């Protein structure tokens, strides 16, 4: 069976020869483990991210007939997974949209986002988000390690709610335009995260690693940019809706992290230091 991909992720490399295995199969996503990377094949309506392959046409990844542990071969922009060939020759690479940060009115947008996300997120996400952000603000290493340990792998969902919170936090800390002042915080969070990664599942771990590198999915990128750049109301509303509709609580949990992390931005500059 042959299918075509219309869009590929921002970082994924499909030219050089790679081998791997099918990691997991879902209705709208098939995950491939390629070396240290986790690639996701999504249907046409799925979300772009760093390592995604988004199919064109109506076919669902779950209907491709691949199974876990099927061998995967990548060569010259073709992927073979099990008996399926995915042709990415004409796929366009999604690149996260550049934007200018404009924090005026940030608190208003954050409040709107929080209100919309309050009943979508898992209830336990909010205190976790506050704990992580509070620990970052306190610059006490032990607090941060604790908070991260208590958050990683915690809560319901294929991607545990705690992990989604961390993605939301990292999305803000690594956003272009704020990363200059937030990079020290991001670095501390990465360090605290490293040993905790083993406590969560492989899929979520891959997403956390990507988020640490500033690589979030398209909806999260768009929402973060909408919050941080004061873009037009329509795109903020759309971006918010896209994130909140992800998973059961996943999107809401990400928003909890995003909201909490924005508090760091509204504090006075000299406080944010090593």
């Amino acid at each position, binding site marked *: 069976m*042959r299918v*075509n991909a*219309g869009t590929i992720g921002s970082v994924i490399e499909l*030219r050089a*020869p*790679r*081998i791997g295995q099918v990691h997991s199969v879902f209705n709208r996503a098939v995950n491939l483990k390629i070396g240290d990377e986790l690639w996701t094949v999504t249907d046409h309506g799925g979300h772009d991210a760093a390592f995604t392959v988004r199919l*064109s*046409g*109506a076919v669902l990844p779950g209907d491709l007939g691949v199974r876990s542990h099927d061998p995967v*071969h990548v060569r*010259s*922009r073709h992927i073979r997974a099990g008996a399926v060939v995915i*042709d990415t*020759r*004409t*796929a*366009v690479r999604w690149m996260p949209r550049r934007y200018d940060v404009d924090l005026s009115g940030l608190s208003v947008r954050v409040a709107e986002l929080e209100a919309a996300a309050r009943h979508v997120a898992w209830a336990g996400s909010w205190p976790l988000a506050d704990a992580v952000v509070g620990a970052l603000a306190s610059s006490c290493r032990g607090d941060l390690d604790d908070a991260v340990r208590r958050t990683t792998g915690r809560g319901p969902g294929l991607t545990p709610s705690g992990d989604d919170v961390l993605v939301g936090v990292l999305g803000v800390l690594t956003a272009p335009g704020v990363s200059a002042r937030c990079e020290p915080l991001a670095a501390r969070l990465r360090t605290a995260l490293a040993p905790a990664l083993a406590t969560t599942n492989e899929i979520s771990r891959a997403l956390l690693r990507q988020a640490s590198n500033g690589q979030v999915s398209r909806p999260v990128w768009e929402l973060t940019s909408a919050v941080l750049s004061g873009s037009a109301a329509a795109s903020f509303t759309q971006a918010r809706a896209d994130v909140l509709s992800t998973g059961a609580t996943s999107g809401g949990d990400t928003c909890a992290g995003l909201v909490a992390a924005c508090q760091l931005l509204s504090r006075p500059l000299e406080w944010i230091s090593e």
Partner: protein
Amino acid sequence: MKTLFAEDLNVINVGLQGFADNVAAAGGTVTQLSWAPPVGANAELGRTLAGLVGNPMVEDANAQAYARYLAAQPRLVDLVLARDAIAGLGGGERRILHSGPPIGWDDMCGPQRGAITGAILYEGWADSLESAEQLAGSGSIALDPCHEHGAVGPMAGIISPSMPVWVVENTEHGNRTYCNLNEGLGKVLRFGANSPEVLDKLRWLGTEFFTVIQAAVRRLEDADLKPLMAQALHMGDELHNRNAAASGLLFKRLTLALLGSDVDRGAMERALRFVAFNDHFFLNISMAANKSMSDAAHGVPGSSMVTVMSRNGVNFGIRLSGTGGQWFQAPANPVDGLYFPGYSVEDAAPDLGDSAITETNGLGGFAMAASPAIVQFVGGTPADATANSRRMLSITLGANPAFTLPALNFGGTPAGIDAVLVADSGVLPIINTGIAHKEAGIGQIGAGITTAPMQCFSDAIAALAATLPHETGDAS
């Protein structure tokens, strides 16, 4: 670590069969190629070709061109006189457009000369056949390819200033394309007929019919062409030689538009009757829509995507997205087909017309799987039709998800011909075509399948390679 050492060996054997047999006997996996030297066994050009295969610059350019092609949304926006739409026909200079790549009057085939003569009479630039021919041969009338003016025309493909042309706009990018009206079957200008009956019909098409249909087009509720064409593909059309379903769908839309208008009742009836009884009426709109999609893909530096395939009854010509206005021409290949009773290959004109723009976009012969009826007409079986569509997948960049073929499990039609793949594989684009009598005015004498000549693609890739920055260490 070499990836190779961690995989099972899977060999492609290019050459002596014995090597493949031995690999298999030794328990290995191997694919034997049916290989022949590419590009006419020209070794030097073969090296150039090798530099284009898997070339990141070309691949990225192709992805860009293909994305523009996919995104195109052709919409039927108007029907106007050619002089009011096409700049080259609106000025003071006398100009007539013809199908195919550039060609001089002296070299033109019979049907095309007959049609040009007829057009000169239609325009009133001469008053007899002899003086019209003389005028045509004198050089005082510019004779240009339709394609060079954003237009297309079937068979002789003649467009003169006073003829109505469909205006199709790609709403995604804004580019516009044009095509003349389909006169129906029998003795018609596009087959080179230029008798008084032919001219009379042209005059009616250019006046009364024009008025009615222009009103209809301007009042169309649903003028988007891709969905209409996609639906027609599911109803047995391939939108080159079989257009009955699409013509029917268009008829519905035009009629609805006219019902609310205040067009003269008698004129409307004559016009609609004409459309209803012309099963190829949509062809000309299909051609303009197709051109608008491939025009969107044209002009991407480094892209080997074919954006024009066209014939003038002598030569076959192509253009690539990355080589601008350059034509790559070669004598047209013979047509393998069936002839109407009383006619044979000796009577046939070489392949003629801009209608290969449909194949250029993945329709026509590429969508043959959609049209078992046409396959019989061209002398094949439905299995042949599906096989033909599948084979075209090996020379295209992708499959167009907007045009799905039920016989291919609703897979998209093969789209985006890659000249590099054609040159490398030896698989030639396949075209469903009508066969015209080589003498002007007799008309269609058969139908069949032909292929685009390899020479065009050889020349095209050589030219494309010359536009790319030289890589270090090239052997040439």
